[in-house]
């Protein structure tokens, strides 16, 4: 009996999870595009079309060192929502936006500034100081472990600034400043900063191409061994041979399916977005870099190569420069003057990246809606104010209806709700729950976010 590769209905414990993440990038997992319903792997045909036929996607976009709070606000709801200056880039999509204020990550308060406020932003875990890193698995990786098994890559973990690993004065490792996606308590997920390589891993399917070469060789070896052995042994080796061949077929089929998906989409008059392969190396202009990374996320979501992404637009204590914004200071230095016009321009520039990604997704029709409607984008920073290093509340924006499970166009303020009711991890619980990852608790939260 061939077993269907089933999704884990429930997460049992963290240890079990960490394994899967580690395999991210192995590229052997099957991508079954929503457009197709070919039986694969002995599985029955996919569910009939309906709201559930569209995969739900999640992406986290991180900007470091806070925002200019004078211009970070929203009022009203839906089309009549008023947006602060920094949020202006989102105006065309404000009906698909939730402005959420007042949330906080308890483990990131009172422990010292910067790395301690960052390395746990998606995990809510207590971080350990000194040379030995210790935190927790991040929620994007929890999602990847469960829903990522059906796609080319369980998750995309991208960054626009190289990670660093020195020590901050708080004695936290700067690795916490550089990584928001963690595969387990002690290891971050390798973050791709090269757009070309991120592109290849998805669209050239590097992982599966590499596995194909290996499987080719293994199959030949098993076949040749099998010819040399006695009947009983042959039966055993042939069983292996057949299994390996099956895995290999699946790898090959995966690419075929992608082509079919593209064809199918064209037939329906819903052309897939395309992008040329980015050049090798790091783009020297950060605008180019961020745009490419957003393009890759958008395209990956549309073609269902992955359903989970995290994008570190800049790392904490970032050294990025924005000459095109008429800003001479580097990001971190600029954030120490967070109420300045200069830092407002920087913050707005980052919001425009979210707007760009959201608009791209919204321009991709999918069923009655768009890819954005089946996604949940979370944009957040590790502090409210860069001059005060204040993480008692976080700037956070959420976009997309996640397949009709999130009502958008709202302004939600949790600041006065009391600490128990304004946990960032409660928001994560709510999102994971809607994506099929049912947890009783996540970090400090054991209830979903009320009213979300």
């Amino acid at each position: 009996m061939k077993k269907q590769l089933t999704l884990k209905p429930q997460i049992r414990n963290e240890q079990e999870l960490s394994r899967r993440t580690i395999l991210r990038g192995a590229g052997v997992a099957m991508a079954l595009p929503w457009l197709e319903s070919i039986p694969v792997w002995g599985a029955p045909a996919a569910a009939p079309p309906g709201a559930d036929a569209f995969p739900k996607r999640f992406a986290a976009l991180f900007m470091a060192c806070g925002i200019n709070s004078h211009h970070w606000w929203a009022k009203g709801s839906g089309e009549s929502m008023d947006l602060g200056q920094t949020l202006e880039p989102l105006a065309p999509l404000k009906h698909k936006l939730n402005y959420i204020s007042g949330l906080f990550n308890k483990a990131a308060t009172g422990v010292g500034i910067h790395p301690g406020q960052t390395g746990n932003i998606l995990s809510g875990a207590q971080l350990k100081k000194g040379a030995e890193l210790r935190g927790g698995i991040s929620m994007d990786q929890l999602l990847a472990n469960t829903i990522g098994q059906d796609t080319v890559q369980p998750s995309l973990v991208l960054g626009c600034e190289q990670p660093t690993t020195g020590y901050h004065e708080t004695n936290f490792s700067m690795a916490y400043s550089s990584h928001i996606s963690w595969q387990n308590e002690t290891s971050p997920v390798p973050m791709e900063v090269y757009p070309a390589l991120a592109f290849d891993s998805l669209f050239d399917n590097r992982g599966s191409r590499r596995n194909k070469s290996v499987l080719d060789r293994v199959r030949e070896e098993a076949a040749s061994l099998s010819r040399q052995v006695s009947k009983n042994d042959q039966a055993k080796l042939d069983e292996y041979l057949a299994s390996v061949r099956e895995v290999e077929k699946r790898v090959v089929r995966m690419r075929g399916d992608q082509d079919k998906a593209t064809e199918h989409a064209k037939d329906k008059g819903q052309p897939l977005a395309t992008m040329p392969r980015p050049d090798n190396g790091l783009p020297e202009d950060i605008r180019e870099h961020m745009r490419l990374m957003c393009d890759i996320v958008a395209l990956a979501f549309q073609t269902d190569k992955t359903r989970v992404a995290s994008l570190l637009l800049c790392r904490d204590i970032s050294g990025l420069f924005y000459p095109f914004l008429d800003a001479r200071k580097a990001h971190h230095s600029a954030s120490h003057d967070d109420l300045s016009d200069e830092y407002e321009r920087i913050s707005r520039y980052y919001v425009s990246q979210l707007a760009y990604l959201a608009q791209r997704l919204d321009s991709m029709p999918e069923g009655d809606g768009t890819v954005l409607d089946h996604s949940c984008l979370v944009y957040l920073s590790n502090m409210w104010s860069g001059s005060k290093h204040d993480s008692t509340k976080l700037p956070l924006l959420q976009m997309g209806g996640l397949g009709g499970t999130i009502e958008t166009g709202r302004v939600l303020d949790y600041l006065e709700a009391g600490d128990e009711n304004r946990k960032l991890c409660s928001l994560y619980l709510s999102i994971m729950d809607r994506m099929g990852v049912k947890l009783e608790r996540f970090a400090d939260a054991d209830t979903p976010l009320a009213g979300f």
Partner: protein
Amino acid sequence: MFALAVCSGMGLAQEEAPLETQFRQQVLPLVEENCLACHSSVEPEGKLDLTRFKSASDVAAAHSVWQAVLERLEAKEMPPEDAERQPTAQARAAAIAWIRAFRKFDAARNASDPGIVPARRLSNAEYNNTIRDLTGVDIRPAKDFPVDPANEAGFDNSGESLAMSPALANKYVEAARFVAEHLVLKPRGISFAPHPAQTDTDRDKYCVRRIVDFYQRQPTDYVAYFQAAWRYRHRTALGQPAARLEDVAREAGVSPKYLRTVWSALNDERFELGPMGKLQAMWQVLPKPTQPVTVGTAHPASRDAEVERPGCLEMRDFVVILRRKLEPPVKGLKVQGIHEGSQCFVLWKNRQYAANRRTYNKDALQIERPEQPAEDKQLAVPADETERAKFEESFARFAEVFPDAFYISERGRDYVGKPRELQEKGRLLSAGFHSMMGYFRDDGPLYDMVLDDEQQVELDELWQELDFIANAPARQHIGFLWFERTDSRYLRDPEFDFSRPEHSDCTSEEKITRLVAVYLAKAIRNGASDVAIEAIERHFRDISSRIRWVEQARVAAEPTHLAALVDFAERAFRRPLTETERGDFLSFYRSLRSDPTITHEEAIQDVLVSILLSPRFCYRMDLVMPAGGGQRALDDFELASRLSYFLWASMPDAELLACAKRGELRQPAVLLAQARRMMRDEKIRGLALEFGGNWLEFRRFDQHNSVDRERFPTFTNELREAMFEEPARFFVDLAHRDGSVLDFLYAKHTFVNGVLAEHYDVGDITQSRDQWSRIEDATSVGRGGLLPMAAFLTQNAPGLRTSPVKRGYWVARRLLGERIPAPPPNVPELPADEAKLELSLRETLAQHRDHASCRSCHERFDSLGLVFEGYGPIGERREHDLAGRPVDTAATFPGGSEGAGIDGLRRYLKEHREQDFLDNLCRKLLSYALGRTLLPSDDGTVSQMRERLTEDGHRFGTLVETIVVSPQFLTKRATGPIAKDRTP
């Protein structure tokens, strides 16, 4: 072939015909009259269809079925009491005799048949263990494979049960990739990290940890050196007149090199004054040994009282406290515009500290004058210059022999100016930068004074690996470029714009050369001192040359990685590779590299993955027979694998493979010696868990989840883990000391850690929660041997009550090897909570036994379980059950003898059932060793095991030794049953 058949057939032929006749005349009629009503081909009871047995040869093909028939007939369980017809006693006896005779006949005919043991994949446990022994890291890639099914004998190590599927093959791919993520490429060869090693931070962690571990392994405590010097001085009195200084050092676990230095400083030169004078005086007054100690017991741990120790501790404290006061201070460099935390200056300061570890700060001395006495007497020196020179000489020597630190393993931000105690802790090997990564090596005194040549090479390599593996120099420079634009503003002038961290060539020689020029020019404009200029130049020179070294070393290392990988493959395949096979790996690597997008590291990973997916790794190819079939002896390498998977559930180690390579392993003496060595090895835990764990059913107890933790809050994960460990450790210890297998039943001892000791209420055992020790008389707290181990008592209790049924069944089935049929489906369940039972469990069970259909089985085990009533649902001792009724542990055992509690059970087993236990153990172990269900032809080996056990004090080793030299273990064959074409 013909001759063989005639030869061996002659004797048998005489028995064959009568057995066939007897079957038709005596057995078939009994079956037809008494059995077929229920056991026919149409919906047979117990799924047993007896109509298919029409001749003795049919029986030969299904011995295990007839073994069950035999047992039922003997126990008079079949036909059941309420059956319409019962055979006469005579007919029953005849059938029993025939089944026995026929089995014996068939066994003799096929004696020493190795049986069919087809190639099979590694079991999950074997996979994990093999990866552990292959890579040196215990990363358990198979931990989320589906659980392996067990075979008929209850073990998951046989081809019968270990199947393969596409889904599992897919997991094999994932597992191989998982292992590859731990691969570390070194300047020479490859290694594996205990954690993924793909990100910079994980690579840093791997390299830094190894260096710090190396440091921490070095003996740098002065006490040990003073004590060793003392023992050398008194070597004659201590019974070792011929001992050399080196011998004493080795015995004391200190560096011979540094001991020589210390010895010389204490004895070879005389100091009257200053710290050396004081120290030598302390040395002189150390007490003499109080009693002569005989040779061989001079080791510090075994001497009764270390009379010299208090004095040596005082000497140590004197050195350490004084030394701290003599450390030369270093003032940081300053240049306008350059951050004090700039890499150039921080590293310059680090170098000053490092260069002065063995000198002292003259300014710390206090010149004593009558009008101004010294505040610190230890630092006092006289005003007279000639006299003072003698003191200074003493201080200089003191500082030289006793460095202010042997090595620096962590460093905070010294440049900030806080005293060292207040600087950041835990930054292992850090250079002490702010925010930037960077390491600094400061271990000169350790390197020069303590390490021998070999250790120096090792340490040098570890530091090179840090640069090589973690690409540390280039990353440090990128950090520099970032820092000098952010926290420092030094590089913000447009003239520096050519060198930004985001430029892919920012670490190139050309860019660094350009950078030095503009950086220096600005520093000079800003008034930098010569020292500062030199510090800046030095820094850029160093970092550039280190970056260049990594670049070149990485290219130069590529062939060594490949060579190491081929050696790895040889170990992974557990037999030598041919030259062609070696070449094969190289060409596969080359074909991968022909794709320009595949890097060296990726290609190496892919080759590694292909090795781990090869059937020669993940299958037991040692069991394979070449095409053409027949029967033959295992070759040396096959035997090595068979032995190691039997005893360790893992691959052969280097020694075993070397034996095989020399062609010696098949010599019985060598084979037995290896088996004995392997039993003493820690890896025998593989046998304890895979054989012991499956035999006794505790293999998965570490995941046992049916305890109600609200009612039993002491049942924590820690306690569960300890319960799981107890039988494992008991088994390992028994194998290590080659103890009697009867200890399983009757031993007075057991093993506990702090957690389990508390659960067992062991009393005054003072030990930490995770430290294990042996309790000699565990019977005083109701433990000892397997029977009262909490793991079994808990596993066989369904939560809120005990289960005499399950506990008794466990004893009968697992220990005594009884085969008891499954209960009929309509048995009423007992209430889940003991507290809610109206009658006691004992009374409820007694009622249950009133039903005839239940009695025949329950009589065989209920009593064996009732004796455990003194132990609650988590194996805790108790006097009342959960409903508050006093417990009663008395029982009438099968056969009518009576007893109470564990002692009663032990007595019953000893008097009536010991042979059953031994027989079962022999069969189980043989079945596990062979990786298949036993055949009648194995009976001879089982009898041998039984006989030798009795002759040899029931040593566990006799079982292993008998098995590994048995023909079944040493040979293999290819095709169907050996007697297939012969009819009885």
